[in-house]
């Protein structure tokens, strides 16, 4: 076991796959010589050379278009979109081309590509560079959507994404890049669509994703210590495919489900989960599903406001205590 930061795990995951498979190439803005604006791809250019690790112009459409073409012609590209907010300028290619290619070619064509991106708030980047857009990606049929919360999951899920035959949107969280965690030595390959139960409780179930996972864990500890409420914490890890089996099982055990979401409230991923739970395990519910989300607002740049917009540990605890009875 080695302790890696979340950002080091990104580079380790890319390197593992590039080492394994010559078809894996990596491209994006400042990903090579600069090692990534978040320093998450340091050393890859030196190790794999400028043919396989490419710095691109500042054009997200060019990056995505190049990756799509590469995937169509036999490579397995990893493309980086520096901020997930910039997906907005790529949607035609991502939503209309990449996501549909297999379907529209009747399976003659698959696009084994990964689009990595830095998602989420907390870094004072303002409304256009801080959004959590996992629900955007989730809304497009044909895309897989992954969002790891730990360095080990970053490496393992990134490997699984690269090996997947279809396009995977890989959301890294800006606020987690500096976090550390144990990562097993040697080749690490995880599985898409498997949630993790990080803490088993009896009273409530908190389902979280990415940066909300450590907050849900902290909240669960406080709920237990200060309020005698025993919480299960589930890290979804992947929205598409979604591990509904674990979701339903863990909801049914406590009868109370809380989603902890960083994306804005309207049509956030938790809405879909609430819908699934209502449909699939209604008779196991002991109360309404409660969503704890960022409100439906553009994220403020001011630190105090940004910190209060995104679900905090304190808000999670307060909400659960108020509603769990």
């Amino acid at each position, binding site marked *: 076991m080695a302790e890696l930061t979340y950002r080091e795990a990104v580079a380790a995951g890319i390197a593992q796959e590039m080492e394994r498979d010559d078809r894996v190439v990596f491209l994006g803005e400042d990903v090579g010589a600069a090692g990534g604006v978040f320093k998450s791809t340091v050393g890859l250019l030196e190790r794999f050379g400028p043919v396989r690790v490419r710095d691109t112009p500042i054009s997200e459409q060019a990056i995505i278009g190049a990756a799509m073409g590469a995937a169509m012609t036999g490579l397995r590209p990893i493309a980086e979109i520096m901020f997930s907010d910039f997906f907005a300028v790529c949607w035609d290619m991502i939503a209309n081309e990449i996501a549909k290619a297999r379907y529209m070619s009747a399976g003659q064509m698959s696009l084994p590509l990964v689009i990595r991106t830095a998602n989420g708030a907390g870094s004072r980047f303002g409304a256009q560079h801080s959004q959590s857009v996992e629900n955007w990606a989730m809304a497009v049929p044909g895309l897989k959507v992954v969002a790891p919360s730990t360095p080990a999951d970053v490496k393992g899920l990134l490997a699984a994404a690269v090996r997947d035959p279809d396009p995977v949107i890989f959301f890294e969280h800006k606020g987690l890049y500096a976090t550390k965690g144990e990562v097993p030595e040697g080749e690490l390959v995880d599985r898409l669509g498997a949630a993790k139960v990080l803490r088993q409780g009896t*009273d409530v179930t908190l389902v979280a994703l990415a940066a909300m996972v450590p907050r849900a864990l902290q909240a669960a500890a406080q709920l237990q210590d200060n309020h005698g409420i025993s919480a299960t914490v589930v890290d979804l890890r992947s929205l598409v495919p979604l591990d509904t089996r674990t979701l339903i099982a863990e909801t049914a055990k*406590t*009868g109370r489900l809380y989603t902890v979401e960083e994306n804005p409230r309207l049509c956030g991923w938790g809405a879909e989960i609430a819908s699934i739970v209502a449909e699939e395990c*209604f*008779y*196991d*519910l*002991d*109360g309404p599903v409660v969503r704890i989300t960022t409100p439906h607002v553009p994220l403020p740049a001011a630190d105090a406001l940004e910190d209060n917009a995104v679900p905090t540990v304190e808000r999670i605890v307060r909400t659960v205590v108020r509603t769990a*009875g």
Partner: protein
Amino acid sequence: MQVVMPQLGETVAEGTVTAWRKKVGERVEAGEALFDVSTDKVETEVPAPASGVLTAILVSEGTTVKVGETLATIGEAGQTQSAPPAATEERLSPVVRKLLAEHGLQAREIAGTGAEGRITRRDVLEYLERRKPAAPAAEERLPLGPIRKRTAEQTALAWRSIPHVLQAVEVDFHAVESARVAHGRSAELTYLPFVARAVCEAIASFPLVNASVDGDALVVHRRIHLGIAVDLGTNGLIVPVLKDAATKSLPDLARAIQALAEKARARKLKPDDVTEGTYTISNSGRFGTFLTAPIILPPQVAILSLDAVAKKPVVRGESIAVRPVGVLAQSFDHRAFDGAYSAAFLHRLKEIVEGKDWSAALNGDGG
């Protein structure tokens, strides 16, 4: 508006209401089927005579009534005679409803601890946990009945105070069996009366066996009052006493034993029937036991156990014969006499059982 039993044919005088199609409080339209009637001639459904609400049912299903008798009333809403169930304002979660239904519980049984007294899933689970019957008891406490209690006291006293010695002889019941067969094996003619008769005769030669210990004296009884242990099944054991057994012929003995046993099983023994025993025979034979070490009934000094009599190979002369063989075991009080005396008594008993002319005895001849 009264609903009456209709005339269903000229000669029909009565009908049986077999089913009501509506409940009290339900709305019914004129001409709509209201109830089913069965007579000795027809089975038919009867329409409601008017529209309205069924306000009362006066005749329950299965009841036979005369033509023209009132069966029910139809009136306006609000006139029903049974009040509708009180409205409940229960806000139960899906899982609580499910748990209540699964376990056949009513919400009112459970105290809610949730917001505004709501019953939570945990409330139901904890209620079920509390209600769960305790694990089946590892033991059951059965109070001793009067007979059991008396038996307990007597046997414990005997066991504590009497130095018991057990001796046993194997006895060939061939002679007895031959006589029984010759006599047609009547119901009361078990081995027991033969043994009882032999005991009486053996006591004549060994009178100390028929005695009581009284302080530092042995009181030897001239009369033989023979106790016969009778099993009352789960109700315990009782020992009725056959007075002056030695004076009775074998057939009389057999009948008397039978009568006493029946009296005991009918719980009709009088105090006089169970006292003054001087020697006791216990018969465990029917369960096939080989030997029983019986406990002496104080103040008696000996007790004999007759166990199973079964066919066995025995050596007779230089050959092997198949004979009905049983063990007669006697517990005696060592304070009263010694092993040699008891052994001699048993030897005598064996001689009598094996050698007496039992056929003659059965004919009332020779005791």
